[in-house]
């Protein structure tokens, strides 16, 4: 239903990828970056974000690095997730973006 494109993982935690469009005003700015990294830190999986499907990839658990991405509103945010709780982590990340980080 979303524009997500989830590749099913093998048991060895091959990376899952998906993407979503940033709908909240002014993009991945201060407050959304904090929310994103806080959410990412709740999972053991390695979680990375990028502005293009081919990277470069950024650690989604580092607010400093996430802010360096400077992702604007309307940008497509790509996720790459690998780990035992990867599917739950990816779902949580996509839900945050689709929900516009709870911003009006």
């Amino acid at each position, binding site marked *: 239903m979303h524009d997500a494109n989830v590749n099913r993982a093998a048991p060895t935690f091959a990376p899952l990828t998906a993407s979503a469009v940033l709908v909240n005003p002014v993009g991945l700015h201060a407050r959304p970056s904090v929310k994103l990294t806080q959410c990412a830190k709740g999972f053991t999986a390695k979680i990375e974000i990028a502005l293009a499907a081919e990277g470069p990839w950024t*650690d989604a658990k580092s607010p400093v690095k996430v802010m360096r991405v400077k992702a604007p509103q309307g940008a497509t945010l790509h996720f790459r997730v690998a780990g035992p709780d990867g599917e739950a982590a990816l779902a949580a990340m996509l839900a945050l973006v689709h929900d516009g980080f709870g911003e009006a």
Partner: protein
Amino acid sequence: MGEIHLTGHPASPGLAIGPVAVLTHAVASRAAKGDPAQEAAALKAAIEGAAVELADLIATVHGEAAEILEFQVAMLGDDALSEGAYEAIAGGAAADEAWRAALDVEIAGYRAADEEYFRARAADLVDIRDRVVAGLNGADAIAKISGDSVVTGDDISPSTFLAVDWTRGGAIALASGSPSSHVAMLARSRGAPMVVGLGPLPWNGQPPSLALVDGDAGTVIFDPQPETRRLFEHRMAAANAAQIAAEAGRFKPALTANGRRISVLLNVAAPEDVEGLDPAICDGVGLVRTEFLFEGSRGLPGEDAQYAVYRRILEWAAGRPVTIRTLDAGGDKPIPGVTVDGERNPFLGLRGIRLSLARPEVFRVQLRALCRAAVHGPLKVMLPMIAVPSELDRAKSMLDAEFAALTAEGIACARPPLGIMVEVPSAALCAEDFGAAFYSIGSNDLTQYTMAAARDVGDVADLNDAGHPAVLALIARTVEAGRKRGVEVSLCGDAAADTRLTKALLATGLTTLSVSPIAVARLKAAIAGMTA
């Protein structure tokens, strides 16, 4: 010494007068530096100390202010911020120099950003940098500023702003700074007038003692002459009285002096326009522009992204009607990949509904998102730049087809009523011939197409008069067509907010006006004084 007039950019509205408080950078020198291990330990302690200070400060503030500081805490707690500094310390640098250099690189990255919002975050990084440096030097991070002052300097940090009691009538006047900074947001929410971008402050040594700040015009006068000051105080008193009177009526329904009820709706250009606004000030949303979704060079917005935005506005309106206008690109609003470049006369070319019908693949996505959003509240959809009934009929068939397709797919949706903008004289003259669910008069375009004069062409701007009898006659004719067909007529152009025209507009029979949020209180006050 004569008075000094400086002009910058308004960042937070209002007028203020007060003694000048100049922000200074206390440069305390640090005790002798130790070996790399000692320096690394000193930096670690200073970073941890800064985080504790910020946590204490967060406990004293709420909402937006707390979130801004939480952002600083999150950044400070991230090793990625300090790793460069620790590397330099290992190479023999002093802790304060290493930290400052590492943060300056980060700050330069923000200042180089394309988007104003990210550039404005540089002030937060400066704040973090200086708090840690102060900790290393054993100095107080924040100078004490009295809340009735006009705070003046190059820029002001969020921490400094939050340490001031702004209820005492102070204001901010900055040589640089940004209207998008966290401090500007805070100043707007706390009602502290603020002007940024004044340029280098023209004094050496002794600063001026008094300043007048006009946060509406973006001007500051230092050391005013007594007469200048007297006039400014007079303006402040008048503005305060008018604001108190208008604010009191903001939440009441708009009634004319003889009891006629006028619906006051909001114009919304982007979702953040209604952020923090109480929907009780209006009777609904008369115009949501959707161009903001398509701006920039980031490709067209998907159905889900559009749906999320439309739904959020409907939920904000809490049951009040919301009218969303389909994409009104072209004319003076080019959108890469959608509009046609190099049209000889874009205002008479492929714009508004003409463009949507010529780009059905783009239009269909918007119609689907609107049908899905319609289940979340009373949504109405209007089409811009309609000239002939067949345009409405074609759009109607497309809307019906998308509604049917969504229903067949089992996706929650509703078919919103479809109305038209009346902004081309042909639509006003023949309004009765359109099978529209409602009419919304776009007075800006209706005026320019009726008078054949653009308002941004100085030589003909005086012809661009929405109060001209020809324009008012077209409005009256549209109102009459709505009455005959039993459908609502509203007006959503700038004329609705021009209180000099309110009497004439109400005389045409209009009972619904749509204006930007900032104009609501003034319009309601103007309506209350009318016997129309």
